[in-house]
C-alpha cells in the first residue's frame, strides 16, 4: 500500500523536521524538500495513468490535442509552482514564494493566451458583422 508508505514517511519527516527546526533549520528545509521530491516521484506513475486515460477520453471526444496538452502543461506548472511555493514558505521565505507565484501565474497566462485568442477570433467570425 503506497498510502501507508506515504503516511509513514510523512510522520517520520514531520518528527524529523520538528526536531531539526530547533537546532538546524537549514537541514529541516532540506528534509522537507527531499520528502516533497519523494512523494512527487512516487505519484508520477499514478499521474501518468490518469493522464493516459484523460488522453484517451480526449481523443474519443475529438478535442484538439494542442489544447489538451496546453492544459496538461498548465496543470503541471501549477503543481510544480505550488510545491516550490510551499517549500519557500516552509523556509520562511515569503518574498521568494510570492515571486514564484507571480512567475507561475504569468506562465499560465501565457500558455492560456493562444486558447483565449482562438476563442475570441472564432466568436468574432461566427457572429454576424
Amino acid at each position, binding site marked *: 500500500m503506497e498510502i501507508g508508505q506515504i503516511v509513514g514517511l510523512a510522520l517520520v519527516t514531520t518528527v524529523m523536521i520538528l526536531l531539526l527546526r530547533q537546532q538546524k533549520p537549514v537541514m529541516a528545509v532540506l528534509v522537507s524538500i527531499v520528502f516533497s521530491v519523494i512523494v512527487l516521484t512516487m505519484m508520477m506513475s499514478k499521474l501518468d495513468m*490518469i493522464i493516459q486515460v484523460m488522453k484517451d477520453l480526449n481523443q474519443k471526444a475529438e478535442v484538439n490535442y*494542442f489544447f489538451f496538452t496546453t492544459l496538461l502543461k498548465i*496543470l503541471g506548472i501549477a503543481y510544480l509552482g505550488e510545491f516550490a511555493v510551499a517549500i519557500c514558505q516552509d523556509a520562511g521565505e515569503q518574498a521568494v514564494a510570492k515571486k514564484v507565484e507571480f512567475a507561475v501565474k504569468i506562465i*499560465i*497566462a501565457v500558455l492560456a493566451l493562444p486558447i483565449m485568442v482562438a476563442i475570441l*477570433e472564432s466568436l468574432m*467570425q461566427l457572429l454576424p458583422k
Partner: protein
Amino acid sequence: MGVLADVVRNVLVIVIVTSFMELLLPDGTIKPFVRFAVGLFVIIAVLTQITVLFDKNSSLPVTMWDAVISNDTALSDHEKKARIEKQGQFINEKIINGAYQEVRSKMDGQISALVSLVPGVEEVKTDTLTDENHNIRAINLQVVLENNNAGDKSQKDQGKPDNVSLPPDKPAQANTKEIVNKIRQVINNFYGFQGVEVNITVEGE
C-alpha cells in the same frame, strides 16, 4: 440526429474530463488561474464541436490548431526534420502521381477520340503504359472495326443460309491492315512519339 448525438456525447466527455482535472488542481493562490484555463478549454472544446456541427469545412481559428506537426517529443531535431521531409515527399508523390494518373486518363481519352476519327473504326479502347519516370513507353489499342460488324449484319440482313461457306475475306484483311497502318500514322503524326510502341489489337480478327 446522429451528428447531434455525437456532439452531445463529445461535450459530455469533455465536461467529465475537465471536472476530473479540476479535482486534480492544487490548492492555493494559483487555483483561480488554472480554473480559468480549464474554463477556456471547455469553451474551446464545445465551440469546436459546434463549428463542426454547422460547417465541416470551417476554417475557424479553433480548428486551425490542428496543424500540429508532431506530438512525439522523444525524437531529436534531426529525426523530426527527416520525418517531416519524408512526410512532405510522400504528400508530394501522392499529388504528382494523382496528376499523372489524371493526365494518363485524359491522354487515353484523347487517343481514343483521335483514332475513332479514322474511317472504318467503330470503337477504341486505349491503355497507355508509362515507365517509372512517367514517360510513355507503349500504347495499347483495342479497336473494333465497322467492317466486321457491318459485314456480319449485311450477311444476316440478306438472309444468306448459314451453311454456305464463303471464300476467305482477303480484301477485308487488306482493309484491316490498311486501317491499322492509318491508325499508327495518325498517332505518330499527331503526337510525334519516338520510341513508343503502339500495339493495335483488332477485335474479332
